[in-house]
């Protein structure tokens, strides 16, 4: 049991390390950011705002929650990749009836 637990621990350390590596930008990626449309009710954001208010942060007037989607690559990102990301962001990753694509950025 202990061995298994140790292995799990070491795996999660490794995952954490690689996640940190990703965050430092070592993996080439395209980041697509999506938000619910301004005039739509964002229930998640509303619930989080209520909780923040309960914690005394009453100066926060609203919270809105969106999505960050990372497209990872094992090679350098080309202009075509960005075009593809733009296309997929518009046609699949977001739904323009309910969401807006806020940004598509490249991170090397």
């Amino acid at each position, binding site marked *: 049991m202990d061995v298994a637990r140790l292995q799990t621990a070491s795996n999660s350390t490794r995952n954490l390390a690689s996640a940190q590596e990703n965050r430092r930008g070592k993996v080439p990626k395209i980041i697509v950011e999506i938000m619910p449309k301004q005039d*739509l*009710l964002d*229930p998640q954001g509303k619930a989080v705002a209520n909780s923040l208010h309960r914690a005394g942060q009453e100066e926060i007037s609203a919270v809105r929650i969106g999505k960050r989607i990372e497209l990872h690559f094992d090679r350098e990102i080309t202009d075509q990749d960005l075009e593809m990301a733009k296309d997929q962001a518009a046609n*699949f*990753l977001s*739904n323009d*009836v*309910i969401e807006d694509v806020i940004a598509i950025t490249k991170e090397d």
Partner: protein
Amino acid sequence: MKIGVITYPGTLDDRDAQRAIRLAGGTPVPLWHDDDDLKKVDAVVLPGGFSYGDYLRCGAIAAKAPATKEVIRLAAKGLPVLGICNGFQILVESHLLPGGLIRNEKQHFICRDQKLRVENNETAWTSLFEKDQEILIPLKNGEGGYIATDDTLKMLEQENRIAFRYVENNPNGSMNDIAGITNERGNVVGLMPHPEHAVEAGFGPDTPTAMRSGIDGLLFFESVLKMVVNS
């Protein structure tokens, strides 16, 4: 008369839809999401459930499945398609129907018998109803709030493309009380409530006549069978 029912990973009501088709006198044909062969069916039902775990957005991933791509292709040629609940969400994500579906106004998952008015009885799936007939079928969803742009809503109203409206109460904040809509041709219909759960006495909604005797859902399937026979 063969009516296909597509099963996606996470679909729940495929067996109920198959049973409804059988009770209406048709032959249900199980179809698999990953197979682009629709087996020459005469009509297709996209059943309810949580396809692909509702990942990304409800119906978004199912809209890109091989079977759905074939549905999109054949719907343009007039194949009758009925999307129920998650199936409705798949139809809007496939752009076979306009608009979108968002979380219910009051955030609650709602499960109850719901009264609807049949606004358009000229679609493939509603021809056996009277115009303005009020029907009772079960509703169960968390993301059933229909929304669309002002232009789309105006177009739907003007072109008589609202197939069903909620009566007495709007359970989920849907714009213009919309419960279901149809495409221009009337072969594609999507709605949030579940007609396949009101097809057999003893298992349907309660009616003033008797407990669980509601079978208003049966007419959806009988309508399409009649149309296919006549064509």
